[in-house]
């Protein structure tokens, strides 16, 4: 049962992050607009992040799916989600009406809000669970 759950988490996380990475890579400039709208980072970092973050998502997704670098990828996904959660929460607190920029550069159904916050918390918990399980498996083997 636990194996099935772990397998399911890996597939779901991989699909979600590979998909969202590819969508952003199609148009990094539009993703930069999404990041910039959070009004957190200077433009220089925004432009760098708009190119690096999508690749981080794709590579982590592929790593999780393949099982290669599984623990590193799970930790990176957890770290990314911590950043996403802070960014979304800060946008909500400041009353910004912006698109999340999470899994699309479009705005349809993707505004910042509790739904996106909850979604990222789910990914965070899932990736941490995956990491802990991978560590335990490695210790016992």
């Amino acid at each position: 049962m636990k194996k099935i759950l772990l397998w399911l988490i890996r597939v779901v996380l991989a699909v979600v992050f590979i998909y969202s990475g590819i969508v952003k890579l199609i148009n990094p400039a539009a993703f930069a607009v999404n990041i910039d709208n959070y009004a957190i980072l200077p433009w220089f970092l925004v432009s760098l992040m708009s190119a690096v973050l999508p690749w981080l998502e794709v590579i982590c997704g592929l790593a999780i799916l393949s099982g290669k670098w599984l623990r590193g990828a799970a930790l990176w996904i957890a770290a990314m989600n911590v950043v996403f959660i802070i960014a979304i929460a800060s946008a909500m607190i400041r009353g910004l009406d912006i698109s999340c920029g999470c899994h699309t550069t479009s705005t349809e159904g993707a505004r910042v809000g509790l739904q996106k916050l909850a979604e990222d918390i789910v990914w965070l918990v899932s990736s941490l669970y995956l990491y802990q399980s991978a560590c335990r498996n490695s210790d016992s083997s």
Partner: protein
Amino acid sequence: MISIDRRTGKQLFYIFALSLLAGMLTLLFHPRSAEVSWQRPDANSAADSILAAVSQQNITLQEPLAINTRQARAFQQQNAIMVDARSPEEFRDEHIAGAVNIPFERIMDYQTSIDSLSGDDWIVTYCWNPSCDLAGLLAWEFFYRGFAKVAVYHPGIEGWKAAGYETEGGAGK
């Protein structure tokens, strides 16, 4: 508590290094990559010279041109098409004088309106204010659909009103 051993540390580094390398290549070679500079493109005072160059020398823009309130006003007076990216209800309440409404979130319903626009005219998209990203996204949408002269007015209707320019609609004046 999360403990990170040496092997995991190496994996973290490899993944980051690979992403960084791919990201740098993206910035260098991707035709739609963001402009890397210390200043935000829309804070760039070069907008005026780009504007003049585009108008006079038929230069092709690589991305929608971000303009300020003064430039947006000049565009409006030169009969650019001002496009409101907000919802029809918000547009009805108040919009920039002479603007048309193409809500980004319902863009598929506005195909006829888009088809009726001329690619020879400047298109200026706007939303509420810089916090609302619909204008930027709509501008990119126009750009991808082959409109070559697209500008985005980030200060939006709030910046427009703050400058004292006229609006229309239920709450307009």
